[in-house]
């Protein structure tokens, strides 16, 4: 899912950087005491998730965990994901420093959208709806990321439909796995710390 260095044109890179900066600044404003350790844990999870690979066709895809990041952190997922991506770029050479903005947006934005779409459902009373929403959030975050990556690749002349088809097809197993992981995380949190789901949501609004 990481876009490599030197693939995108300057306007796309700049747009990505500006959007990411905006997201990060909102995220930092919303980051309070309780969010900091939470953001760190999820950032670390995101950081290592990229090492878990699902071999797929000519390429290989890895877990993203942006759904659960967005769901639990809201806007704070922007700084959380930016930090993880920066470290991945420096230590693993995944992506690259110049593409950080674009990569942050393609991964954090779907998380944020997932948070607004499914956050309410997840903290609801009904366990079944909550878990279904968790699965959907994990699933759609990756799906949306794929669409955003395809959109970013448009500027390289790679046609949107081909790129999108390729990315989405390759990420189908990841979507399902992420859906399940998000589901388990939410089920776990509902049991041991329901305030975390509900409380976080109210506060970040």
């Amino acid at each position, binding site marked *: *899912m*990481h*876009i*490599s*260095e*030197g*693939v*995108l044109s300057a306007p796309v890179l700049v747009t990505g950087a500006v959007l990411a900066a905006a997201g990060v600044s909102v995220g930092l404003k919303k*980051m*309070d*005491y*309780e969010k*900091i*350790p*939470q*953001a*760190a*844990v999820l*950032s*670390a*999870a995101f*950081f*290592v*998730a*990229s*090492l*878990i*690979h699902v*071999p797929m066709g*000519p*390429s*290989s*895809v*890895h*877990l993203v965990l942006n759904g659960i990041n967005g769901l639990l952190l809201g806007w704070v997922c922007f700084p959380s994901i930016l*930090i*993880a991506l920066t*470290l*991945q770029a420096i*230590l*693993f*050479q*995944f992506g690259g420093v110049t593409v950080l903005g674009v990569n942050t947006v393609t991964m954090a934005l779907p998380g944020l959208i997932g948070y607004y779409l499914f956050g309410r459902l997840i903290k609801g009373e009904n366990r079944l709806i909550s878990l279904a929403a968790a699965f959907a959030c994990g699933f759609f975050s990756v799906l949306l990321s794929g669409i955003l*990556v395809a959109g*970013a*690749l448009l500027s390289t002349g*790679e046609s949107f439909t081909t*790129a999108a088809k*390729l*990315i989405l097809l*390759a990420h189908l197993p990841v979507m399902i796995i992420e859906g399940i*992981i998000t589901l*388990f*995380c939410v089920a*776990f*949190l509902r049991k*041991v*710390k329901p305030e*975390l789901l509900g409380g976080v949501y109210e506060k970040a609004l």
Partner: protein
Amino acid sequence: MKKRYNTRYSFIILFLTAIILIGSNGPALAHKVIIFAWVEGDTVFTESKFSGGKKAINAPVVIFDKDGTKLLEGKTDNKGEFSFKIPKVTDLKIVLNAAMGHKAEWMIPESEIREAGPIVEKKSAAEPSGPISVGFSKEEVQKIVEDSLDKKLRPIVRMMTESKNTKPSLTEIIGGIGYIFGLMGVALYFKNRSKK
């Protein structure tokens, strides 16, 4: 309350670690693509891989000269390899496009091609060709030596390709996690100070 909170976090960490350990059992393939190229005679061989060892199959490879003009293009075979005859003595930039935004480059400097290639240099007549006795010209001897060196060095070149593809080491992974928690400490510190 604060204590309880902390234990919950450690639960989450444990949970995620468990997922990671289960997940990383298989061959971990990292998300980076590499192309490696070397010259043998008049041919350039390239090998493309995702770090961790998975070959980049059917990926388009484009070769540019030093001015950025496209010289030729091709596709990697099912072993991730692609070879081509040197089209022109110049710096070659080999670009691999492994779709989904993955891209890698390899440069072959002009000097490497000159040294390896049989492209005959116009030697100035003034240069003494040396008193070579056994009927071999200087060039012939040079070519024989180079050919056999190419052959002998091939495994080493391959080994170097392999070693370039090492996946992220444990040190890097743990270091990265350490950075994140260090940053958390810094953030908490500043939050704490601004509150006072």
